[in-house]
């Protein structure tokens, strides 16, 4: 009796918890609303109204650079300008993309590998007059003008406040852990949203730069929708590399790509991973196996 009473009283709480969890999961990101309340900063005053740009108007703000943002499913941009003392100024730009992967993509295109990285958002970095960071579907760019030599002290509080209004901290795409650590250039990982390797049939993919014993090469991972999707990609790539008519099957390939040089790749399930421009067969084999061991290949 006692047990069933506990079960009955637990049930409404459980249902409520699930409903609340679902609501939180489906909760619209902070900037899907009509306005953004940019933070008030002590010693600074917002200069003018917040500017808002959509995919159709982004050109007006960043001109030719807009093309690449649109390729990463750009949704909207909110911009606020702050004025401080002695003609100091800070501009805060919040770019919202369709999802965290797309936001990581554009962030990774612009990330400078040798910048000073910060623990803010999923990742952030500072260089003179600039503090950029990524959090969830947002790519935030903060620029300082006349903010002095040590302007990290000025820009960082802006970043922290903006991070607060954008919500919970998220992590970088989990697939990045598939890349072997040995020889990898730190912070060289990129997500390419379409036309991976310059081929429209490859959809999207992740890539990272490597250097081992003075030899530079790239490792990539492509995630297909399913096995059939990968089969279609492989068929087209085989045709592209002069192997027309060859029926693709899961396993290892070594191909001569007229644009990229030697490409070794492995297809398993809904994943294709490979190495561009690495001639050492032992090293190639080692890396391909390590990627599989790190979680790629089992997903069918």
């Amino acid at each position, binding site marked *: 009796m006692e047990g069933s009473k506990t079960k009955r009283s637990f049930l409404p709480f459980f249902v409520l918890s699930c409903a609340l969890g679902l609501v939180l999961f489906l909760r619209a990101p902070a900037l899907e609303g009509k306005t953004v309340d940019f933070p008030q900063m002590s010693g600074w005053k917002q200069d003018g109204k917040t500017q*808002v740009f959509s995919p*159709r108007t982004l050109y007006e703000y960043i001109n030719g650079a807009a093309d690449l943002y649109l390729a990463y499913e750009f949704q909207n941009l909110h911009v606020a300008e702050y004025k401080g003392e002695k003609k100091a100024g800070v501009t805060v730009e919040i770019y919202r993309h369709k999802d965290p992967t797309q936001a990581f993509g554009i962030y990774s295109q*612009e990330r400078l590998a040798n910048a000073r990285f910060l623990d803010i958002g999923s990742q952030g970095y500072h260089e003179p007059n600039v503090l950029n960071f990524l959090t969830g579907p947002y790519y935030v760019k903060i620029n300082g003008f006349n903010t002095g030599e040590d302007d990290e002290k000025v820009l960082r509080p802006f970043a922290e406040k903006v991070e607060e209004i954008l919500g919970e901290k998220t992590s970088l795409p989990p697939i990045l852990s598939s890349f072997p650590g040995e020889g990898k250039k730190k912070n060289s990982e990129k997500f390419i949203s379409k036309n991976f390797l310059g081929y429209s049939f490859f959809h999207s993919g992740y890539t990272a730069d490597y250097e081992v014993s003075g030899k530079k090469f790239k490792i990539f991972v492509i995630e297909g929708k399913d096995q059939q999707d990968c089969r279609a990609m492989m068929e087209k790539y085989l045709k592209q590399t002069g192997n027309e008519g060859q029926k693709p099957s899961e396993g290892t390939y070594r191909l001569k790509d007229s644009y990229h040089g030697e490409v070794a790749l492995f297809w398993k399930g809904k994943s294709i991973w490979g190495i561009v421009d690495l001639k050492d067969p032992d090293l190639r084999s080692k890396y391909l196996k390590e990627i599989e061991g790190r979680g790629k290949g089992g997903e069918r």
Partner: protein
Amino acid sequence: MSKRGMGRRDFLKSSAAGLGGFVYLSANEKGSPEKGQEKKEGKITYRTLGKTGLRLPVITMGVMNTSNPALVRAALSNGMYFLDTAQTYQRGTNESMLGELLKGRPRDSFGIATKARLPNNQTTGLYPEEATEEAFAKKIDTSLKSLGLDYVDIYHHHSVWVREAALYEPILNALVKAKKAGKIRSIGITTHRNEPEVINAAVDSKVYDVVLPAYNFRQKHAEEVKKAIARAAEAGLGVIAMKTIGGNVGGSYHNPQIDAPAALKWALQDPNVHTIIAGFATFDQLETDLKVLRDSLLSKSEKENLRRAALQSGLYCEGCGKCLGQCVRQLPIPDLMRAYMYLYGYRNLVEAQDLLFSLSLPAGLCGDCGTCPVKCLNRWNVSERIQNVVRLREVPPEFIA
């Protein structure tokens, strides 16, 4: 295999045949270019970029949409030896990618243009006093460092849309000094809107050697741009066209409404355009552009495709800005026309409402003016369109989100 029975690799191989080197014309070959100063060598068509003397293929690779060095290498090896980048593309990593790729290549085997801007007032387009000569000079040095080059062939003053900004002395001084110091060979200016005013200012300045305007078949003010370009070319300036597929008005290689090769050819029909920037991102698109490089004549079907696409753009406001001074209430008419397009063209209520809210419009628009003095170049009834679209403000956002 292509329709003509030539595979991609064969095509790329054949395009590379008969390439000329990257050359500047000698002093006595320079001067005011004549129309039709076009040469076909091998299979590639070249034109001379005005008084700069640069002999360029009629298509320049715009590197802005790619971080793929293999694509740039393929363009270079197929005769598309002039590259266009900017310090703002991928926050400078586009320039450094090119720097890495160009390392070790003979400097006379390629040409390169890059560009930069200083923060300006986004509403007026004017520069604040903090925009200094030193700041722009630093931009030039940063570009050279990223590219790993001693000089660039063209350095553009980027993204200008008002005359005063085009003639802003601190930036002109920085460019002239850099040219004297041998850091840049030619001075250029880019403009994505209000192009005729900027092109004319560039001619009047006697400083700029090159203009780089948006120019495409979908621009309602294309005739005005064409006239300004003609004046620039007559004055000896080099003319490079961008956004020729209509990138600033919704066009792209993937837009099914746009015949991309036809759009590229459209700009090249103007003999005053010396080269156009194509921002391809795949090898397929490169192949498309290489075909145009060999044959830029518009076919009958391509002309028809352009005509249809231009008609479909009846809802696009190109933002020529002619209406802005005409409205007695100083309404942001181009923005309102864009909201109208979102609503009636794309049926995107959220986008339209977002835009309306962002404009902070007064209540009761266009209801009490009597006759509307605004004369739109598209001959649109602007007042009627405004009255229609602003009704969306009354709809609670949660109904349409």
